[in-house]
């Protein structure tokens, strides 16, 4: 790796690794479900106690990563898959009507409380992980599209974009390859926090009966459902919450590190960094 801001990178990697490994490998080690104990008890062979329905928290934690990683990540990715082109179209178009046609309906969606949306989905969707990912994505699209548009508007009107157009460059390359890349940093920052939001939306939805089961082994659902026992058996909330925190924090730190590294290497001539020679060497390792 070329001179990534190593400390941040290492921290991010470490933070991501723990939850990711548990999420991916956990189910292999979970084993068969043991008999249920009373809910929210500690001890009795349960390292981390039992959860709200008397299951072993360790086992639930081992099982609960996959859906988090899959649903939340895919929902966030999906939201951006739609929001980025949409936001970029609006930032790049000179046709006001097109922008209005695309953005105003999204504003309408924004004004509808997400609770109502989720309730409706609960009634209309057959519960399923895909449906849930779609729903979480849908709730996030209007918001994400606005952020994309706002950050891209300036970049989209620079002479470099005019030059690309003059070259007959395809819309996709201009928008995503150039404008998108120039605003990658705010977008990544936004996506990072949105991932966290998506996680907990999944949990809320689960409670209302959409997507994963309300007693599913899922970290976000665990955090939500075990909260009543917070004072009796905190581990059932604290451990999955810490894993979620580690996952999202780690993701964000990694993205930050990657962006920092990109800036260091990809704009070599920006001629604004004063570097001691030894620093230079370190950077070029």
């Amino acid at each position, binding site marked *: 790796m070329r001179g990534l801001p190593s400390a941040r990178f290492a921290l991010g990697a470490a933070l991501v690794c723990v939850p990711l490994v548990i999420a991916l490998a956990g189910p292999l080690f979970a084993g068969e479900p043991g008999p249920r104990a009373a809910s929210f008890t500690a001890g009795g062979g349960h390292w981390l106690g039992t959860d709200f329905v008397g299951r072993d928290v360790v086992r639930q934690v081992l099982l609960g990563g996959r859906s988090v990683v899959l649903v939340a990540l895919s929902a966030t990715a999906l939201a951006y898959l739609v929001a980025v082109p949409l936001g970029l179209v609006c930032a790049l178009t000179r046709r006001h009507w097109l922008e209005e046609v695309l953005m105003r309906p999204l504003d309408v969606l924004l*004004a509808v*409380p997400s609770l109502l949306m989720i309730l409706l989905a609960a009634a209309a969707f057959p519960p399923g992980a895909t449906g849930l990912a779609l729903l979480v994505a849908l709730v996030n699209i209007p918001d994400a599209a606005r952020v994309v548009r*706002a950050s891209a*508007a*300036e970049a*989209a009107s620079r002479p470099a974009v005019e030059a690309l157009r003059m070259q007959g460059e395809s819309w996709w390359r201009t928008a995503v390859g150039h404008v998108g890349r120039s605003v990658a940093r705010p977008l990544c920052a*936004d996506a990072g*926090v949105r991932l966290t939001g998506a996680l907990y939306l999944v949990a809320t939805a689960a409670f209302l009966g959409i997507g994963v089961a309300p007693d599913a082994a899922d970290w976000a659902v665990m955090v939500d459902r075990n909260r009543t026992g*917070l004072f009796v058996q905190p581990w059932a909330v604290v451990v999955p*919450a810490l894993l979620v925190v580690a996952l999202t924090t780690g993701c964000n730190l990694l993205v930050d590190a990657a962006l920092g590294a990109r800036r260091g290497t990809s704009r070599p001539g920006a001629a604004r960094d004063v570097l001691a020679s030894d620093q230079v060497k370190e950077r070029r390792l």
Partner: protein
Amino acid sequence: MSGLGSWVARRLLLGCVQTVAVVLLVFGLTEALPGDAAVALAGDQPDPARIAALREAMELDRPAHERFADWAAGLPRGDLGHSLASGRPVSSYLSGAFGPSLLLAALTVVPLVPLGVGLGVLAARFEDRWVDRLVSAVTLGVYAVPEFALGVLLVTVFALRLDWLPPTAVGYGTDLLGHPAALVLPVLVLLARPVCSLSRLVRAGMIDALASPYVAQARRYGIPDARVRYAHALPNAVAPAAQQLARTVDWLLCGVIVVEALFVIPGLGTVLMDAVAERDVPVVQGLAVVFGVVTVVLNLGADLVAHRFAPRTEVAA
């Protein structure tokens, strides 16, 4: 500026259309939900005869479009209709809940902007050094903590252990201003996540701006550091942050359900929850009008800001 003026006018006009769309959509959604006010009121005694009687009493047996038309006809007179559940005017629901929501939103936004911007600027200024790492890690960590957990934590520590602040605002009703101490914890909980997202957006924008030649020029020319950061670099990070801020205010005004429930603050979120649970369509519609207007106005504001901070867009070919 005539271009801008007509743009705003057009957006406001569109805003009216949008609000109508929001109301229609919300009406449709609420109607589409299984059950109606009669079923909801019947609760665990779903005696079919009684439900039928309730339906008749609430005029729910009339077609949806007729009820909607009736409700809409009252709008020009400022009449938002009457609640199905209690028969009280919807406007009394809204006016009662809007105060607390507005107060909370205002109290949250006032420190939110300086805090979010300040932290973002601070992190960007010390990019990749321990300050930044600390700010980044803390903001991300806090953001990943669900609201209820943060609320419970704060209440446990500051209200129940240390006894510095009241744990809830129960019993204070709408007179929250009379009990400022009760607002501290809810505002802190409300602040936590928006501060994080705002500061991350500001940080991201600032890092690019601080590395730009125009900031280097301002520095070189001896402009005080703070002024360089806030007056010259920050504006470049404003556009996405303004969007985020608008969304936050929207969220604050249109339903901070968890915090309202946790601290017993009778705001719009609670009213919405109850009204949806009761399928109290007129109340939900009244709320939709409020939410529609709030969203339209906030989005317009955010777009104006974004427009101002991307002045070059006006000349795009």
